[in-house]
């Protein structure tokens, strides 16, 4: 018999599924009821994921005895045969990030975007369900199914609001992702053909025992699977779709999509560490170099992209590319200390970029309503004359409007966060990564120095691009008052930025959690034994 708290693991999947399905039955006009149900669900999700983090991390000194991973058997089938959900520190962390982004972007959507098209709330909750499922599943084929749930909800959300541009870019996005899913299937079936299992914990044991003759097949399967993850993560030659697709989405959707690219990184991290760790025999540390160099190429591509972006939303898209590249390269180093820094960076950059996406609309809305630059025109104009207008009157009496001050403050906060300047969490994250890199044993390797240089350069480029945009958008006085800022739109941005501030203030405990997470990720034995020794319900009334 298992305790009721063990059933909490399935709640992040079951809860949004049930609420989303119920909302399908409500009429399109009942926005208030739908908004109430969906915000209630996301808040519950947040509470559940916080409880799950608490249950994996243990308290105080007893953290050594706290289980690193817990498994939940769906339908109470024994382990290698049934579907299993696995909760460990990394998946709990990703659940919390998803729930936070879910809450904030949903509240932002209440301002007006939830009425821009049909079934926003249902799609939104299904998106959260797919994300949570992908983070929790312990089974390769289920990972595929949850990827498909994530993708099909994201197709709907990307097309939300309609319009020629969204439909055109939506067609590209769907076509690319359908093709990627087919690659995913080929990879999964090759791995199944060689090892005869799809359970991730079971696979760790089988991969070590693969005969040398089948190794090439296994590695091609894993490579094709990795390709599918890398397309989602937006690695350099595979990620050209990312900035375009994200800039076409409505702001709350784009802000939620920030975590979508992290799903690819999560899947890569989980599978590469589980399958090709130290005891994987001949397949040992397969493809680490590809990740390292591919990640560096991605950072370089993102850096150039940030500098050449003509609109703020593309700039944010390239910030995601930089963040993906940094994460991929650090995963490629295969070092625990670097990885813990990377996880901190993941949390900080996800929250920061999400806040930035929400902020973009607020900033640019004022800009368009003042009529100085339509959204389709380039934001940056080297010969802007607005600031130099002589009829400004006495400069002493110029009062910065409160909304501009707020937006500008948020913008500066975002810039510092994304560029990784002290004292905010972006700096702590990058510092943790660089510290881990400098501590590497193969410090003499040129790749390490190139990576360090690229991480610093990408920060500088982000700062330059953001400063340029900020001066042009916020410091150039326009005619008429800035459109008023609604609390419901400002609050989510404020919450996200406050969380980043919290990451900075409580950096000590958070970094400790990340270090423990990184160590647990390298502890394949604990993961395997948690799955194989998962408690069974044994009583028919619990099994579903």
């Amino acid at each position: 018999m298992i305790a009721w708290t063990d059933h909490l693991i399935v709640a992040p999947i079951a809860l949004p599924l049930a609420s989303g399905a119920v909302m399908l039955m409500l009429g399109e006009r009942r926005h208030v009821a739908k908004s109430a149900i969906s915000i209630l669900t996301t808040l519950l999700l947040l509470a559940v994921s916080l409880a799950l983090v608490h249950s994996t991390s243990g308290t105080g000194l007893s953290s050594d005895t706290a289980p690193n991973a817990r498994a939940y058997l769906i339908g109470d089938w024994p382990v290698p045969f049934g579907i299993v959900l696995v909760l460990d520190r990394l998946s709990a962390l990703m659940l919390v990030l998803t729930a936070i982004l879910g809450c904030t972007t949903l509240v932002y959507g209440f301002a007006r975007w939830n009425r821009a098209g049909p079934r926003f709330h249902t799609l939104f909750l299904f998106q959260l369900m797919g994300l949570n499922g992908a983070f929790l599943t312990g089974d390769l084929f289920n990972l595929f199914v949850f990827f498909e749930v994530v993708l099909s909800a994201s197709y709907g959300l990307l097309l939300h609001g309609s319009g020629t541009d969204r439909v055109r870019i939506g067609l590209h996005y769907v076509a690319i992702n359908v093709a990627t899913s087919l690659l995913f299937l080929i990879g999964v079936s090759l791995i199944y053909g060689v090892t005869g299992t799809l359970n991730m914990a079971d696979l760790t044991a089988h991969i070590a025992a693969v005969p040398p003759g089948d190794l090439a097949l296994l590695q091609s399967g894993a490579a094709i699977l990795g390709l599918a993850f890398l397309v989602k993560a937006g690695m350099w030659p595979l990620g050209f779709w990312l900035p375009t697709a994200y800039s076409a989405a409505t702001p709350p959707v784009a802000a939620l999509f920030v975590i979508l690219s992290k799903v690819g990184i999560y899947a890569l991290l989980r599978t590469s560490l589980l399958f090709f760790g130290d005891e994987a025999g001949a397949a040992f540390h397969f493809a680490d170099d590809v990740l390292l160099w591919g990640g560096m190429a991605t950072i370089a591509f993102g850096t150039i992209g940030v500098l050449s972006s003509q609109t703020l939303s593309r700039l944010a898209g390239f910030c995601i590319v930089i963040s993906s590249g940094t994460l991929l390269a650090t995963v490629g180093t295969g070092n625990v200390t670097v990885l813990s820094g990377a996880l901190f960076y993941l949390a900080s950059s996800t929250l920061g970029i999400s806040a930035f996406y929400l902020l973009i609309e607020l900033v640019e809305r004022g800009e368009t309503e003042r009529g100085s630059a339509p959204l389709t025109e380039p934001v940056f104009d080297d010969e802007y004359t607005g600031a130099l207008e002589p009829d400004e009157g006495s400069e002493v009496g110029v009062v910065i409007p409160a909304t501009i001050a707020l937006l500008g403050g948020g913008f500066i906060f975002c810039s510092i966060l994304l560029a990784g300047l002290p004292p905010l969490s972006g700096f702590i994250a990058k510092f943790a990564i660089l510290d881990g890199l400098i501590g590497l044993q193969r410090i003499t390797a040129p790749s390490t120095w190139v990576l360090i240089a690229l991480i610093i350069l990408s920060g500088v480029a982000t700062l330059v691009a953001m400063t340029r945009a900020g001066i042009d958008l916020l410091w150039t006085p326009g005619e008429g008052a800035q459109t008023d800022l609604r609390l419901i739109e400002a609050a989510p941005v404020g919450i996200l930025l406050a969380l980043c501030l919290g990451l900075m203030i409580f950096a000590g405990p958070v970094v400790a959690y990340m270090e423990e997470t990184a160590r647990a990720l390298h502890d394949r034995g604990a993961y395997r034994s948690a799955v194989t020794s998962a408690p069974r319900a044994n009583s028919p009334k619990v099994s579903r």
Partner: protein
Amino acid sequence: MEAILALGIGVLTASGVWLILRPRTFQVIIGLSLISYAVNLFIYAMGRLRVDAPPVVGSGAADPAKFADPLPQALVLTAIVISFAMTALLLMILLTLRGLTDTDHVDGEEKAP
């Protein structure tokens, strides 16, 4: 039988890849469908090819060597359903784009000749 299946998968994939690189939306959709057929056959083949072997074991002890592997068949079923739904969605987007831009080019505009 292996050779025929392998050739079939190869021909389907090759045609599909050629089609998804074409500029018309309808060709892209047919290409994706062809590749998904190839992938479905491939998943099925990964359970090893068996003729006249049932996938479902009856009650009582059974010799696994006499049965086909049921798991790839279940996976194929899931994959078919998902790719079917995605093709339907893609068709809808195709029609919308056709209506919005009056062209069936994937970029929504004809390239200058």
